[in-house]
């Protein structure tokens, strides 16, 4: 029973999960050879490790570890400020390279994607594992760092495959061998199974993914909710989770949350932070042609307490003006003088599509129409000259202060190492090889 396969065919579908190995740190190592083989950590500007190279992981450094601790256990660590611009450029290249092999690519995260290569063996004149290894080879050759790939009949199993051997691993899990990979895998390591479900399954003495997969269908459908029924089916080799191959076209909610250091007791400064979050969230709202109906404003204190107020707007709006006005009122209620605040945030909880372009009979929309046009121009200016070329005056203090007191001098090197014609606001969309130039050969 324990050794019988869960599925008899190998790849009724062929799904890949492609996962960057220490993606951010690898981006840094790939552009500066001096960093190769060294413990590299990104996240200098935030004071914690955002990503660490395999050399750093080997020294016991984990994600979100504070930098002072890292410097103590690994004095030779190279700690760099995050360069999200470069990481995003390389992330897009990852997806574009995979799309050379198949159009069905789901961009699942900045450093990972799913790809469906079912039925492409004849076109590429290669087996599924060979196609996977060619994608892996292209990525490493052209981007300069490695990716781990899982190949399986379903997304959940492909995800197990990509984690099986890292870095630079390629793990194929054909249907008839699924049970071998699940036998010793703790059930909480399965994509989508969280601590609640793990605890629930424990009560039924289910500890491994295989024990979960071997549960009878009737039991699973009677005792768990749909997401877990789907995971159960996927573990059994039956593909039910489709790839989401299109870029997001809409959002159910949009949020912007930002911490600042040092914490502040200055109401004008903290409100300005909130104002900027609202403004940034509105930029996203307009990009997806939405309008805000309801918003939650949040303040977080140094003691990590949250205070928040939900506000419904009288009129759905895509521009920050009315939202900031509502926020000002909420802020008066939330603000406690003398308290140290360390973060502000806004969540737009109710969004509508922004369709009401026709002016109404009573002319109340004239003002709204006018401010829409102002923001159309502001968005055009930002597109031409870079983000935050113009911003509302209430955000001014936040816009002109560094977000963290450690930020000065911690700018990503690419932001200062410009070529002629680039500005602090806009750079060429091509990653740059950085680092030392080899000299000492002068005769």
């Amino acid at each position: 029973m324990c050794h019988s396969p869960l599925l008899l065919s190998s790849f009724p579908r062929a799904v890949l999960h492609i996962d960057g190995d220490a993606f951010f740190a690898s981006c840094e190592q790939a552009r500066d050879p001096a960093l190769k083989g060294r413990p590299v950590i990104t996240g200098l500007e935030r004071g914690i490790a955002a990503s660490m190279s395999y050399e750093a992981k080997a020294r016991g450094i984990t994600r979100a570890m504070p930098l002072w601790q890292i410097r103590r256990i690994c004095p030779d660590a190279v700690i760099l400020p995050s360069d999200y611009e470069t990481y995003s450029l390389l992330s897009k290249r990852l997806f574009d390279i995979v799309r050379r092999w198949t159009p069905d690519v789901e961009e699942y995260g900045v450093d990972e994607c799913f790809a469906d290569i079912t039925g492409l063996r004849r076109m590429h004149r290669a087996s599924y594992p060979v196609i996977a290894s060619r994608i892996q080879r292209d990525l490493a050759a052209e981007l300069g760092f490695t990716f781990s790939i899982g190949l399986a009949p379903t997304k959940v199993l492909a995800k197990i495959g990509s984690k099986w051997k890292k870095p630079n691993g390629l793990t194929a899990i054909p249907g008839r061998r699924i049970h071998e990979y699940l036998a010793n895998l703790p059930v909480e390591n399965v994509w989508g199974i969280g601590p609640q479900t793990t605890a629930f399954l424990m009560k039924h003495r289910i500890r491994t993914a295989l024990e979960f997969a071997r549960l009878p269908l009737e039991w699973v459908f009677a005792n768990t909710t749909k997401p877990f029924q789907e995971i159960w089916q996927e573990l059994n080799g039956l593909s039910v989770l489709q790839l989401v191959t299109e870029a997001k076209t809409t959002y159910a909610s949009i949020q912007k949350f930002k911490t600042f250091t040092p914490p502040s007791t200055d109401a004008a400064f903290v409100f300005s932070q909130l104002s900027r979050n609202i403004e940034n969230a509105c930029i996203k709202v307009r990009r997806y042609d939405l309008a805000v109906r309801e918003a939650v404003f949040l303040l977080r204190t140094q003691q990590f307490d949250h205070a928040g107020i939900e506000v419904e707007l009288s009129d759905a709006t895509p521009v920050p003006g009315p939202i900031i006005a509502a926020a000002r009122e909420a802020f008066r209620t939330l603000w406690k003088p003398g308290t140290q605040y360390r973060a502000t945030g806004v969540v737009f909880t109710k969004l509508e599509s922004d369709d009401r372009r026709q002016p109404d009979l009573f002319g109340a929309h004239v003002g709204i129409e006018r401010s829409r046009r102002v923001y159309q121009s502001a968005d055009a200016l930002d597109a031409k000259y870079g983000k935050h070329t113009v911003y509302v005056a209430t955000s001014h203090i936040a816009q002109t202060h560094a977000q963290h007191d450690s930020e000065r001098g911690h700018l990503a090197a690419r932001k200062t190492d410009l070529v002629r014609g680039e500005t602090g606001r806009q750079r060429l969309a091509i990653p740059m090889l950085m680092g030392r130039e080899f000299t000492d050969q002068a005769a």
Partner: protein
Amino acid sequence: MDPTPAIRRIRRFFQQRRRMPTYREIARLVGYRSTNAVAKLVNVLVAGGSVVRDTTGHLTLPDPFGTARVLGTVEAGWPSPAEEELADTMSLDEWLISNREATFMLKVRGESMRDAGIMPGDMVLVERGSQARDGDIVVAEVDGAWTMKYLRHRDGKALLMPANPKFRPIVPRDQLNITAVVKAVIRKY
């Protein structure tokens, strides 16, 4: 039901993707659950003339390229050459970059390639992972630093040749790590 927002979204979709949405995509655009409802909406749009069916039954826009462009004036005798003749041109990007995903840039620092016309401050575009051949200018990794030189093969051994008599050739101790091949040099004044 007012079909105006639906038309707006379909047009936007067309502008972004250069094709019409499928019924399922229209359903998502307008927030319908069934393609049957979409079929009814499409009938309304077709009847109103904002969407048309071509001879094969596929949907298209009545003016897919926006408003019609005027090609010159009739009195001049010849249409303005611009539109049609420009079809066979390419942008600077297309000219400079062949494999976009593998292209990186590098700012030139030393003078070792001076006689090849590559000066400090120039920007070079390099292609990562492409096969380097004898005579190519390459970017190689030497002692944890980048160096840009001509790749030459002498007696079966690869070496890196500078284009400046003040510099000596680099003979790799064991293995030569070529990272990228130079594809273009750009100098902006």
